[in-house]
């Protein structure tokens, strides 16, 4: 069997080199750090069912500005850690006094994690054409542990979804997702994403989603 439910402290292997994410090594043995599903491949990793979003470098996230200092926007990214968007990471050169004119408290942004230091100081950036302030469309929140399932292997699930519902979709690793399209298409996208979140851990999900979308679109026409 290559998958198993484990709890913290469960012995996973006698080969220390197989230690992957969610595990630790003691006396050359590999143990689980988490309550979740252990995957037994070359490396053994444990995927948790729940837990907070911890920002990683390169993650796309959707944030909400919660405060403005002299040179930083403080951004809530649905994590125990806030993101800092420095004025130099804004795509345009602006003055400190004008910061709130461009992004005020409450503004939502599609942004990326530029750096995370050992004290968990998180730096964000908007310096990319695909990033920026959210002005239209809708944002929903799902459990961040379901995001990998929503994206799928090599992006397969999300590309299929974008094509089938004909919407712009930005998936934040922190569980926030932006959808922009017609009212009808957005509604279908929302319902599909909710379904994926609900059944993320089950088998045969991709096929079920494909059938779901087919049925919904047929019902429309």
């Amino acid at each position, binding site marked *: 069997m290559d998958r198993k439910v484990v709890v913290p402290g469960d012995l996973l292997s006698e080969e220390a080199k197989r230690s992957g994410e969610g595990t630790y090594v003691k006396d050359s043995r590999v143990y689980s750090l988490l309550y979740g599903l252990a995957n037994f491949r070359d490396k053994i990793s444990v995927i948790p069912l729940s837990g907070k979003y911890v920002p990683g470098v390169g993650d796309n996230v959707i944030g*909400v500005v*919660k405060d403005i200092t002299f040179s930083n926007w403080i951004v*809530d990214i649905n994590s125990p850690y806030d993101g800092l968007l420095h004025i130099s990471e804004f795509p345009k050169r602006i003055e400190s006094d004008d910061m709130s004119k461009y992004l005020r408290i*409450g503004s*939502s942004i599609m942004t990326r994690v530029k750096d995370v230091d050992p004290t968990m100081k998180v730096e964000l950036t908007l310096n990319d054409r695909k990033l920026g302030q959210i002005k239209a469309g*809708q*944002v*929903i*929140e799902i459990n961040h542990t379901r995001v990998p399932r929503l994206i799928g292997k090599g992006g397969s699930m999300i590309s299929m979804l974008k094509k089938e519902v004909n919407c712009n979709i930005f998936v934040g690793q922190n569980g926030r997702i932006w959808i922009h399209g017609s009212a009808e298409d957005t509604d279908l996208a929302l319902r599909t994403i909710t379904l994926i979140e609900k059944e993320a851990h089950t088998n045969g999900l991709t096929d079920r989603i494909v059938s779901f979308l087919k049925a919904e679109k047929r019902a429309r026409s």
Partner: protein
Amino acid sequence: MSNVISEIKKDFIYNLLLKGERADGRKFDQYREISIQRDVIKKAEGSALVKLGSSQVLVGVKMQPGEPFPDSPARGVIITNAELVPLASPSFEPGPPNEVGIELARVVDRGVRESKAVDLEALCIVPGKQVWIIFIDVHILDDCGNILDAASLGAIAALLSTKVPASKFGLGEDYILPIRDIPIATTAIEFDDVLMFDPGVDEEAIANTKLTMITTADGCVCGAQKSGTGMLKPEQIYRIIDIACEKAKEIREKFLEA
């Protein structure tokens, strides 16, 4: 969690409202599923666990003899307290009840007291010296919205299951506490001119006006409380009273089965 997050949720709820919908698909005057389990805490003289949707409230009733208040020497005493313990919500902090917790306890108390559900004169043991003291302790376990209605339901359900512990104090045999009415609290929020009953936690966060009506078995209002920083028109209040009486009757009927 910062308050700014409500921006995302606020928009989401508002968009649904424009379509005449609520996030969980309920009608505007529809209550979530209610479950009431009585007598769950054996150490208490009466108790009830109420689930209202995902909200969970546990109420315990303890009784002991004590001194009456000087201005009512032949009447029993009811003391209602609510603990909004930190385990129930990320926004509850440890410590003595703050204004929200105190308000909740006092509104629950109002329902029990003003409906005269408990005959306080019958709780007199020795006039001027000894009366029964009833402690109603509300313990919030999971705040998923509208814990006030859940607490009020829990209080009357716990009272209905209460046995007076007379034998423990050498005051005769234990007997069931007689209850004369079943007050039910019904709460609605007002948002953009729409009235939503039994608000969920996100709906509560975006609304700034809340109105609670407590009604009795014969359709009278025995308590009311407007809270929040918004405003209400009299017509909205009268509409809420009508729906409150209807909802309370439904809940009371289901209740008497419970």
